[in-house]
């Protein structure tokens, strides 16, 4: 299918700033859906609040733009109520790791078959550039005017440790690897998580001497180290670098399958006892 057929063209143009990478990540999601041949009628895309969370609105599926941080909770309701539906969550670094952090670890723990794409632009863009739990230490934001003293989450490590079936990180600069990771995540039965690093020259870049989209792309190119290469490097060399690649790809029991089995078991017991 033509990629444009997956978009609600009457919702365009989008609201994202010049140089924003969100459109590239959105395109990668659509390419993944297309490659797997998923039906638009049986795919639900859920988001929270923030720049990235506007993406589902542009897509021609059943789409749900929820409250801040809660996309995974709403998505859990959709998926558990109707397990045959494909459910995708689009979220951002603040949405997923700060206000929605609890839902993220618990969705991963249950290993519910939801694919979560976290658009990580390292900043709260919609509100004008405040630091997030994924902003690097010492970076600047409108609420970190003297430099960020917080430490950043390694969100992939957190989700992996919480029990997800699939975990990967990619970047908009390394679009081929990112697109493949998203497709693998969509195909994976179980909780699948992709952190997609995306440039925000307007809010993150401006405060961090990366004012143009090109500066930000160059920064991605220089900072990102593929996992295979990183494994051969010593920790000192990796300081300040970001590792991209697949961190988990496991076959584990899936939550809605387990619930279906539970229903069958309970109904059999009820029948036998009556």
């Amino acid at each position, binding site marked *: 299918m033509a990629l444009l057929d997956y978009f609600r063209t009457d919702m365009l143009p989008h609201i994202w700033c010049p140089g924003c990478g969100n459109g590239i990540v959105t395109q990668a999601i659509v390419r993944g859906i297309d490659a797997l041949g998923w039906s638009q009628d049986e795919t*639900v895309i859920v988001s929270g609040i923030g720049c990235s969370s506007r993406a589902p609105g542009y897509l021609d599926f059943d789409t749900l733009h929820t409250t801040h941080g809660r996309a995974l909770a709403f998505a859990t309701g959709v998926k558990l109520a109707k397990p045959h539906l494909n459910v995708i969550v689009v979220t951002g670094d603040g949405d997923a790791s700060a206000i929605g952090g609890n839902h993220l670890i618990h969705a991963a723990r249950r290993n519910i078959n939801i694919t979560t794409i976290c658009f990580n632009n390292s900043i709260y863009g919609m509100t004008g550039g405040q630091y997030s739990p994924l902003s690097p230490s010492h970076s600047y934001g409108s609420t970190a005017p003297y430099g960020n003293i917080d430490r950043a989450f390694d969100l992939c490590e957190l989700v992996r440790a919480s029990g997800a079936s699939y975990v990967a990180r990619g970047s908009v600069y390394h679009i081929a690897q990112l697109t493949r990771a998203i497709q693998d995540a969509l195909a994976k039965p179980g909780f699948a998580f992709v952190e997609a690093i995306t440039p925000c020259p307007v809010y993150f870049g401006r405060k961090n001497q990366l004012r143009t989209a090109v500066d930000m792309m160059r920064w991605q190119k220089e900072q990102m180290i593929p996992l295979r290469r990183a494994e051969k490097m010593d920790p000192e060399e990796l300081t300040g670098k970001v590792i991209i690649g697949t961190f988990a790809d496991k076959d584990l029991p899936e939550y809605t399958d387990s619930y279906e089995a539970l229903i069958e078991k309970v109904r059999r017991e009820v029948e036998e006892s009556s």
Partner: protein
Amino acid sequence: MNLNKTGTHLFQGNEAVVEAAILSGCRFFAGYPITPSTEIAELMAVELPKVGGRFIQMEDEIGSMGAVIGASLTGTKAMTATSGPGFSLKQENIGYASFTETPVVVVNVQRVGPSTGMPTAPSQGDVMQARWGTHGDHPVVAIAPGSVAEAYTATIRAFSISEFLRVPVILLLDEVIGHMREGVSVEDVQAVEHLERKRPKGSKSDFRPYRDDGSGVPPMANFGDGYRFHVTGLFHDERGYPDLSPEWARTLMKRLMGKLDAHRDVHEWVEETETDDAEILIVSYGSPAQAATSALRQARAEGLRVGQFRVVTVWPFPEDALAKYKGQVRAVLVPEMNLGQLRLEVERVMGDAAPVLGLHRADGELFKPAEILEKIREVD
């Protein structure tokens, strides 16, 4: 309860809610443990799989509210249950359900607040929160049953109202109604009408999820049925797309706030006792109504002209029904287990027509009939 048999069966209030919810077709429950509503979650965990429904214990109260909204959007009747602190946490998503017109039933078994308060003691301290707990103007329905039998029928009505009018319904139990055991009659349960969600007709490609069909309540499609629609908590046009223009905001809010007025027959619920010749009117709701009824009987035996106006659907407040008593009654008593919440509505409706006297307690104790009777005598 076997509805094919007649007679009266003993139920705990929380148990009655679960049974009635399943009878109403509820097939999804998401919750979080909290006293004194926990039995509802526990029984849902037992019963839902038996009927092919789904129960999930979420990581928190906010998540359970989100999950029931998500489930409801797939066309599955959904419920959650909580108490004071949890009700506070659910508020943002209750507003989301109201604004996106997603049917959900939220049970709040009220305990004494504020804060952690008294977890095992009854209260009616969340009456105003049920109306105004979430930010912004919004429609909401709240029902406060006065007995276990009424908790049963009120649950059925809560689903009907929620599904038919696409509005969140708060089932305001209090700890007494939730934990007390009383008889529920099969005939009373059978008599309650079940209303369903209005479904779209016509071609899927022309479907507009928020287009008024003239009733004020747009027909609702399910996620997964090929309508491919957008749902957002932003101001949204008929297509569900964001539209923040002042003109559209006025149009949308007019329909949203007007739909409950237009369908008062669906949600209004008042029970009047001995009011024809009443000079003193007791306005009650929830478990204190039982003490008020008892006081009324004794007062009548003493020859005092007392009547009871029992509000079951507290929001929207039945103002026209109550206003009928202006000019008839010389005083109104409002017993409630809070420091004066629904009394404010009664005062607003009665105006200068009669003094409104509150009997209030928020100490975890129940009203005794004698306290109410004493107040009646005092007024007389």
